[in-house]
Structures are given as structure tokens and as C-alpha cells.
């Protein structure tokens, strides 16, 4: 046995205590909890720094930027047709929908309009992106609140939609199919009948979700009255899409201010709103929207006009000088592009207004005073895609 003097032993203990002290931050107002960057509820890498007191959140601050790709800078060195490849990857679950407002803004500046057939097919693909996006939301919501089954069902049934998108565009996730003045290609043979079958399957998926999730007592307990956002707060934060409609704001860019180039004026559907503004309302609106989207697609499939799919546009696209803002109702909410053109091959400045950026900026407001598990309900119900925040 080696002898250690009392002095040495005391010195070693003091050093250990010093080390330990360096790793503890004494806080007088609760403790800090990091949710993420790697957490299933963050759909990627969003970090939420929550200060908590017991089980209650005092403040929650989302930290974005783990996925910033600098698209606004990159668009300034790409020609207009090249830009769609990039912006496809903003909201990667509904990627075709990202291209549409950019193309529409460029069309506005060039004063071109896509032929009716292209507008129709564009709208169908837009709604298919919405279905692919929101069906996954419903599954994801269930997973985060502890109900795994619907997660599997949503991944299963989303395939039907993705298959249809793939059959037209050749890409499951990044179609890059929309063009200034129309579309890249026409529909393949037999696609209309297949899509109708897929819509039928999506409707039965919605019924399944309705039964499994929305009728579930645990789900209701975890979402009803949680994260209530009043309409005026939602407006001043610029919440859009289902999040705004769940706060009772009757505003849908497909119906109100729909930019030319989409065929929403030719279909009949309902814009759902909910007065509650809580996590349940936001989820419920999305469920109804999935159903409405299948109805829109069905109606459009029946009325596709014949004709060309491309307007006459120059082979080398130069967009005349000017500024244009076009926003559309994307799966996640209002997505718009503010294009400044100098009459060149490349845009001078593109401001990308993505839905999730505004939708998530309300997190500090809405998470104040809630309990820790409710943070997950709120994040899940606000539904964001990281690429749509960071761009």
C-alpha cells in the first residue's frame, strides 16, 4: 500500500472540486435545457434553448442556422432556369411547390402566361406536393406525441403520391419541373386514372388519421388548449397557412389574391378555419386541408384542357428590368419571392420569404409559461421544415 500524505490527498481533492465547479453554472432563475439540435421534434437541426423553472418554461429561444445554405446569395449567380434546382430544396417535403412562386414571379416580369393545360397540371402537382407534405405532418405529429402507428401509415401512403409525382417529373423529391412559360413535359399515359386511385387512398388515410389520432383521448389532452395563438398576434408575426387559419384568420392565397398562372379559380373547395388557435386546431386544419387537396386534384383531373404545355419563350431567358413579388399558398404557408431584375440572365436580388421562418419566430412568444412536454406539442403542431427556416 502506497502511503499518501495528508497534504497530497487534500490537494488532490481540492483540485477535483475546482474542476467540478468549472463545469457547473450556477443559475438563480431555474436551469437551461437544450432541446436539439438533434431531436425528433425539430425535423432536422433546430436547437431550442429553454430556460425552465421546475417543469415550466420561462423562455424558449430557437437557434437556427445549422442548415443555412445561403440560397439568396447563390441565386444571384445562377440563371433563372438554374434557380429552380436550388429552391427545390427549401421545403424538401413539398418541393414542387417551392418552384411555383419563383416561376410565377419571373413570368410576371416577363409578361408571359403559361397555357391553360400547363396551369392545370401545375396546380395538380402543387396540390400533390401539399399531400406529400401534410400527410407526413400527420404521421410526424403522431410519432412525437407517442403514437407510432400513424407514422408508419403516413410513410406508407405518402408513397402513392410520390409515385405519381415521380411518374410525371422523374423525381420523387426534387422534380425541378416548372419552367418559365409552362412545364417541362406533359403527363404520361394512364396517369390520370392512377392519380384518382391514389387520391382515393389518401382519403382513406385521412379517415385513418381521423380515427387513430384526432379521436384519441391522449392526443386531445396533449393538444387542446396548448399553445394558443390569438389572431392579432398571428398576424403581427406573419404566421401563414394552416397556422393562421387555425387562429381564425380566413386567409388562403389559393382563394384570395391567387397569382395568375394557377388554376384554382376553376375548382370548388372549402377553406377551413378554426376559432381555437391551439395545437389541436392547427393539426385539425391540416387534416381537413389534406382532404380538400384530394378534392381539388380530383376536380382538376377531370377538366384538364388540351393544348400545348409551353408558351413561346426565348431559349435564353432574359428577364426585363423590374421588381415583382409573388406569394402562393404552399403546404407550410405563404411562400413568396421578391425578385429584383436588372434585365440580365441572372436575378439581381431574390428575397425568399419562406413560411417556416415566420412560423417559428413565434416560438419564444408561444412557449412562455408552458410545461416542457407541451413544447413538443407546440413545435409539432406549428410544423416547420428546417430548410424552410434556414434557406
Amino acid at each position, binding site marked *: 500500500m502506497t502511503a499518501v500524505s495528508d497534504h497530497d490527498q487534500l490537494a488532490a481533492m481540492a483540485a477535483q472540486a475546482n474542476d467540478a465547479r468549472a463545469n457547473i453554472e450556477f443559475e438563480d432563475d431555474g436551469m437551461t435545457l437544450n432541446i436539439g439540435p438533434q431531436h425528433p421534434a425539430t425535423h432536422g437541426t433546430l436547437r431550442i434553448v429553454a430556460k425552465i423553472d421546475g417543469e415550466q418554461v420561462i423562455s424558449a429561444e430557437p437557434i437556427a*442556422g445549422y442548415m443555412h445554405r445561403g440560397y439568396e446569395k447563390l441565386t444571384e449567380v445562377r440563371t433563372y432556369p438554374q434557380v429552380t434546382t436550388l429552391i427545390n430544396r427549401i421545403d424538401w417535403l413539398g418541393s414542387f411547390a417551392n418552384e411555383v412562386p419563383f416561376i410565377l414571379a419571373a413570368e410576371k416580369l416577363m409578361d408571359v402566361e403559361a397555357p391553360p393545360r400547363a396551369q392545370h397540371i401545375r396546380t395538380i402537382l402543387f396540390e400533390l406536393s401539399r399531400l406529400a407534405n401534410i400527410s407526413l405532418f400527420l404521421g410526424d405529429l403522431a410519432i412525437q406525441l407517442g403514437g407510432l402507428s400513424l407514422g408508419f401509415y403516413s410513410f406508407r401512403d405518402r408513397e402513392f403520391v410520390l409515385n405519381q409525382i415521380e411518374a410525371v417529373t422523374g423525381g420523387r423529391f426534387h422534380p425541378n419541373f416548372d419552367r418559365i412559360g409552362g412545364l417541362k413535359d406533359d403527363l404520361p399515359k394512364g396517369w390520370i386514372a392512377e392519380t384518382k386511385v391514389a387520391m382515393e387512398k389518401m382519403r382513406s388515410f385521412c379517415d385513418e388519421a381521423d380515427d387513430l389520432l384526432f379521436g384519441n383521448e391522449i392526443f386531445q389532452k396533449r393538444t387542446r388548449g396548448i399553445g394558443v395563438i390569438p389572431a392579432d398576434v398571428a398576424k403581427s408575426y406573419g404566421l401563414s397557412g394552416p397556422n393562421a387559419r387555425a387562429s381564425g384568420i380566413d386567409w388562403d392565397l389559393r382563394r384570395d389574391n391567387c397569382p395568375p398562372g394557377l388554376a384554382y379559380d376553376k375548382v370548388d373547395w372549402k377553406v377551413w378555419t378554426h376559432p381555437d388557435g391551439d395545437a389541436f386546431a392547427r393539426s385539425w386544419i391540416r387534416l381537413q386541408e389534406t382532404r380538400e387537396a384530394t378534392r381539388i386534384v380530383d376536380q382538376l383531373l377531370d377538366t384538364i384542357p388540351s393544348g*400545348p404545355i409551353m408558351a413561346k419563350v426565348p431559349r435564353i431567358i432574359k428577364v426585363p428590368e423590374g421588381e415583382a413579388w409573388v406569394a402562393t399558398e404552399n403546404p407550410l404557408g405563404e411562400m413568396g419571392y421578391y425578385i429584383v431584375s436588372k434585365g440580365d440572365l441572372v436575378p439581381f436580388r431574390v428575397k425568399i420569404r419562406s413560411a417556416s*421562418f415566420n412560423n417559428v419566430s413565434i416560438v419564444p412568444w408561444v412557449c412562455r409559461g408552458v410545461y416542457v412536454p407541451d413544447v413538443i406539442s407546440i413545435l409539432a403542431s406549428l410544423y416547420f421544415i428546417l430548410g424552410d427556416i434556414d434557406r
Partner: protein
Amino acid sequence: MATDELREGLLATLRAELGDAVVGSHIRPGDDLWVRVTAEAWLTAGEAVKATLGCTYFDFLSAIDWLPSPFGRDMDSQEDLLVSGAEAKEPPAMTTGYAGGDTRMQVFARVSNLERHYGVTLKVDVADDDPTLPTWVPVYAGANWHEREAWEMYGITFVGHPHLVHMYLPGDFEGNPMRKDFPLLARRVKPWPGIVDVEPMPGGTDDEEDGESE
């Protein structure tokens, strides 16, 4: 040119409210309205569009750098050409967009009226030597993150902002990447191959191209 009574009316209301602070405007009939105000009146303008025009919905706030890129259209590959002895191209003169402008930097924001379905794009000049503006956070809470982004990317300080810290970039990052004179580093490493690649379009003017490539 058709007149747009709605937007003419909105502009007149704003002029009555703000007086000389409205220094420029542009209307695209049936579509959009641009109003440029002075920097001193930026906060008042925000309050006026919210209260008087009913634009309670906040779309976005961002900035534009009107300086023509000193690196040319293909950005940094231009510099590589200079190194290998090519002649320097004179950058074009600086021009500004709708509603005019006197400075290199402009902040612009868009707000909408959801009941009556119109929107306004507000622009404001930001002094080159002192890029500061009052914050819009008390008027539109959503401006918080947008101003952080504009501060980080363009170096415009928003006075009175509650939490002006980096949004995307690491805290010790130097420079303002969205400024036109900030080089795009990816292009310095490797010249962009896509600059000559213009995709053939179906239904385009060169039909024989389509037959081959599609």
C-alpha cells in the same frame, strides 16, 4: 395605362398621413404598390400602414444592396480571369429600382391587409456611412427575426431591437455576406461550370435542339 383607384387611394392616404416623408412611389396597376419613405419616418410609416391602411399582416422585411457586383455576373471567376491577364471590365453604374433611391443600401418590407386583399411594399434609404434604422419590433413583432437577418447579412443596425444577435452565422463571423462586394467563396475555389449551360426548353425557338436533346 390603366389607373388603379384602390392603390392611388392608398397612396394618397399615406401621403396625407406622412406628408413629405413619402419620397417616392410606384404603382403597377391592379397588382402592387411601392412607397419609399425617409429613414426618420420609418417607424411612423410602419405604424401608419398598420393603423390607417389596415395592413396588420407582416410578410417580410429585408434589404437590398444596389451596388453592381464588382465581380461581374459570374462573380468570383471574373477575378480569376483578371489574375490570368484578362482586361478588367468596368462595372455598370448603380441604379435603383421602383420608387427610386439615393443610397446604396435600402431596407424594404412588405405588409398586407388580409380583409381587403392588398399589400404594400415599403422601402427606405439607409445612409451609407451610418446604416441604422429604428426597429419595427414594437409595431410588427415578426420583424424581430427579419431584422436580425438583415443586420447579419447587410450590416444594418436596428436601433431598439431587443435581441440583435446572429441568426445563421457563427458569432465570430466577420463581414456581411449578402452585400454585393462580399465574395462568394465557393467560386474562388472552383470556377462555376454552369455559367455556359443554358438548358434547352421544350417549345423554345430552336426546335431542332429539342428533337436531339429530349
